[in-house]
């Protein structure tokens, strides 16, 4: 079968075919990408993978009923079949008066250049990428004699292109790249074996942190875990390091998703405009930051992305919405539609972060008589409907304002509603290491379960 290239023309032709079959509205999302990764372990190349992929996704409306489909087979026959299948499925779905594309006048009029793709880095040779992975691992292994093993070092990159077109006449596309390297060293001492991890990720190859910084940071992180022990069950202040504080922001973004809200599946239902957190908490979602990992020139429905205050000094100002979930809540889309190809839209944050506070991390630790500094959380013990929170934790015990011995095999528990209210200090150490980020955060009290 003759394979076709992905293009805005193909998207428009697909929509025209659908219209001829009676579809009243529709949109096409297409993506193609090339990905590469190399993993090394103990100084030797372990795995190299390289590939290219293409997908075409179609969503059609027949009045108020709709269906979606996708294919990786980009040929004329396959696209025709896709249109037929989608039309067939849409006949059995319900009439939903809230369904449909966004209003045409809301669509992005211009497509800003957000500097998302590092074209020059396509020329980086495989050999150089291998050297990066080897260097990051070497820096971790060489740091200390107790680091005796490794789960490996990795370098990866992805170049992708997204095309979106809708029956409102909108069509646009953008390209993006991501680069990352990481290492997971293993340390052993006195019968205790621990693994930790550190990484750097960026849209620009040259902006990755050096293998030296990433490797040494991973080494320090794993060493400080050696000899971890349980502590007695207690109620204490808990400090989340920036990575772990980021996980609280991830929980917040799930609770703010329009889909969770209109279904009644969020502990923040009905809280728009009210105080949901300590006044130290200001959260921003900004899809327009040039070169940032979560930026996009338009969202999954062709709407412009924007910068918005989500939580302003503790007051909830914005949910995260697409057109459908917005309509269900009587609100306008916030430009947060995200698409999995061949699925109806969902909602996701863009660059979502907790604004930096006033305190140096050391001062935050210094404020605690006895408590836990959390550096790792595991498990899925967060109930989005109630906010109940209970997760496995590891970190360092704080005594008289100083970090002391490592702690493991404990849980921390509370309720997100109270945890956000009980944020007592926010660090000045915000760094956008990923799409979701936070500085150090202190929560005045949580239950720690151990012995």
């Amino acid at each position, binding site marked *: 079968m003759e394979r076709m290239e992905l293009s805005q023309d193909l998207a428009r032709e697909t929509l025209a075919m659908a219209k001829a079959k009676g579809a009243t509205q529709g949109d096409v999302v297409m993506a193609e990408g090339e990905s590469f990764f190399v993993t090394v372990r103990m100084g030797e190349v372990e795995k*190299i993978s390289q590939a290219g992929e293409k997908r075409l996704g179609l969503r059609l409306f027949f009045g108020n009923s709709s269906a979606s489909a996708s294919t990786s087979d980009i040929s004329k026959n396959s696209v025709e079949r896709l249109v037929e299948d989608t039309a067939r499925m849409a006949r059995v779905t319900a009439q939903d008066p809230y369904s449909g594309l966004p209003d045409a006048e809301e669509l992005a009029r211009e497509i800003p250049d957000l500097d998302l793709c590092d074209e020059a880095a396509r020329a980086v040779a495989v050999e150089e990428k291998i050297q990066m992975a080897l260097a990051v691992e070497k820096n971790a292994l060489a740091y200390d004699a107790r680091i005796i093993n490794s*789960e490996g070092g990795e370098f990866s990159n992805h170049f992708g292109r997204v095309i979106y077109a809708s029956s409102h006449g909108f069509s646009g596309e953008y390209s993006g790249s991501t680069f990352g390297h990481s290492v997971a060293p293993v340390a052993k001492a006195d019968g205790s074996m621990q693994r930790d991890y550190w990484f750097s990720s960026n849209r620009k190859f040259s902006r990755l942190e050096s293998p030296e910084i990433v490797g040494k940071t991973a080494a320090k992180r794993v060493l400080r875990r050696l000899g971890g022990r349980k502590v007695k069950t207690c*109620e204490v202040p808990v400090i989340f390091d920036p990575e772990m504080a980021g996980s609280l922001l991830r929980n917040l973004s799930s609770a703010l998703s329009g889909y969770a809200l209109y279904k009644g599946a969020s502990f923040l239902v009905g809280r728009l405009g009210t105080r949901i957190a300590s006044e130290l908490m200001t959260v921003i979602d900004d899809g327009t930051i040039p070169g940032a990992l979560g930026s996009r020139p338009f969202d999954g429905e062709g709407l412009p992305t924007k910068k918005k205050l989500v939580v302003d000094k503790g007051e909830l100002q914005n949910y995260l919405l697409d057109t459908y979930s917005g309509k269900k809540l009587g609100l306008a889309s916030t430009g947060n539609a995200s698409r999995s190809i061949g699925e109806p839209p969902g909602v996701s944050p863009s660059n979502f972060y907790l604004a930096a506070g006033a305190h140096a991390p050391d001062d935050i630790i210094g404020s605690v008589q006895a408590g836990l500094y959390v550096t790792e959380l595991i498990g*899925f013990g967060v109930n989005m409907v109630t906010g109940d929170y*209970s*997760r496995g934790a590891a970190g360092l015990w704080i005594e008289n304002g100083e970090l002391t011995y490592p702690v493991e095999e404990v849980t921390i528990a509370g309720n997100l509603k109270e945890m956000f209210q009980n944020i007592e200090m926010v660090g000045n150490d915000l760094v956008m290491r990923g799409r979701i980020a936070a500085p150090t955060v202190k929560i005045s009290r949580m239950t720690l*379960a151990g012995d």
Partner: protein
Amino acid sequence: MAGAGVLEVFLRESVMAQENLPAASFFDRNFGIQGRDLEKVLAAALGRKADYADLYFEYRRNEGVSLEEGLVKNCSQSTANGVGVRVLAESKTGYAYTDDITIENLEIAARTAQYIAQNRSAQEPVPVGQARGAAHDLYPVKTPVNDVALEKKVELLYQIDRYARSLDARVKNVMVSIGSEYKVILIASSQGLVVGDIQPLTRLNVSCIVEENGNRQVGGFGGGGRVEFGFFVDAKDYERYAREAVRQAVLNLSAENAPAGTLDVVLGPGWPGILLHEAIGHGLEGDFNRKKTSAFSDRIGQRVASELCTVVDDGTIPSRRGSINVDDEGTPTHRTVLIEKGILKGYLQDKLNAGLMKMPLTGNGRRESYAHIPMPRMTNTFMLAGESAPEEILRSVKKGLYAVSFGGGQVDITSGKFVFSASEAYLIEDGKVTKPVKGATLIGNGPDVLTRVSMVGSDLKLDEGVGTCGKDGQSVPVGVGLPTIRIDGLTVGGTRA
């Protein structure tokens, strides 16, 4: 596909069950990929220096239908196909894949994967394990759920919605989804193996939100497997799913805060077997043990559980979600004893790790799709039944927690620390199950937790068929199982200190 060398080998070895034959002809018919093409590509992949090469062809059709707020709002379908080319040289893996299955692309992918073999040091080639045993026919599905008329699935969803709402006036929203997958795979290796399989998989989920005086709670239940549509409707199992989802949500309306601290814990039968998956299973996967990064490294033959515990991984149970006829490297699945009467017996292996560790293949080389490199993964992991009556186990506990349903779990393989989160739990007071308590995460140490199993029930149950395991960014369907067991002292992460 006449006259092709590799296919002749396949006929001689007769590694494919009759029912699996269509997988081979499927790729010939749809993509014009014939035996001689496979040979050519494998030869290119192997080059002069590699030890082993294989091709993994995959065609996959997924369909999802979902209901919420009383409406079937969404129907979606995706079709994907592609091929992955893998080259092994010592402990190195080269991998390339394409979703455009043509001979030209296969040859490009083969050369890319071969790249890795170019910088190998001069060492003895590592023999990779040979496939052995007969393939199974564990899921002879006549009509995959994908092919059942969409109208029937839509109607089932409406029926479940009406039924769930009729159970309790406090039900505010019901969400139901039915997902089905039809997957055809074909594996061809440089050792002359050509094996295919057709793997249907389906899952029905019901969740509901109940509300009383502003207190909102969620409950969920589901099931599935490599089964036909009748699995859900013949005995009206879907009504049981709905009843369970509503019961769990309503129960949570009156749940009190869970205790915090170390308590004796009784786990109910079935899905709580996720304990084994997290505490034991991952730590026994061959890759971590070859690298000696697992808390179980070098512990074969040692006691890692009380003698009441025998734990197996069995990919051969008919129709189960975690079962497969052959793994994604073409090795027939097995029943592998991991722990026998408390003693660590074996690891779960794929070809690479079995070869490097000089251990037998176990049929656990699995991958999410053609875009992923195989790894050792679990299939259905469970503990064999013991002799205690479940009531007797509960009666033996003075003060503790009885946990019967769980959400997800996670493990740190190196430190051995694992968690799993209860979604339905009760206090045990003086041998009696009393108040329901809110969900809480339980945390323990993998190599240690089973040594504190003091009673094992006679009521082994496998889960309903909803598990998905994630490792290194790859998801695969799995199953778990457990009889009622008592663990003396496990940390319960509630809020009531």
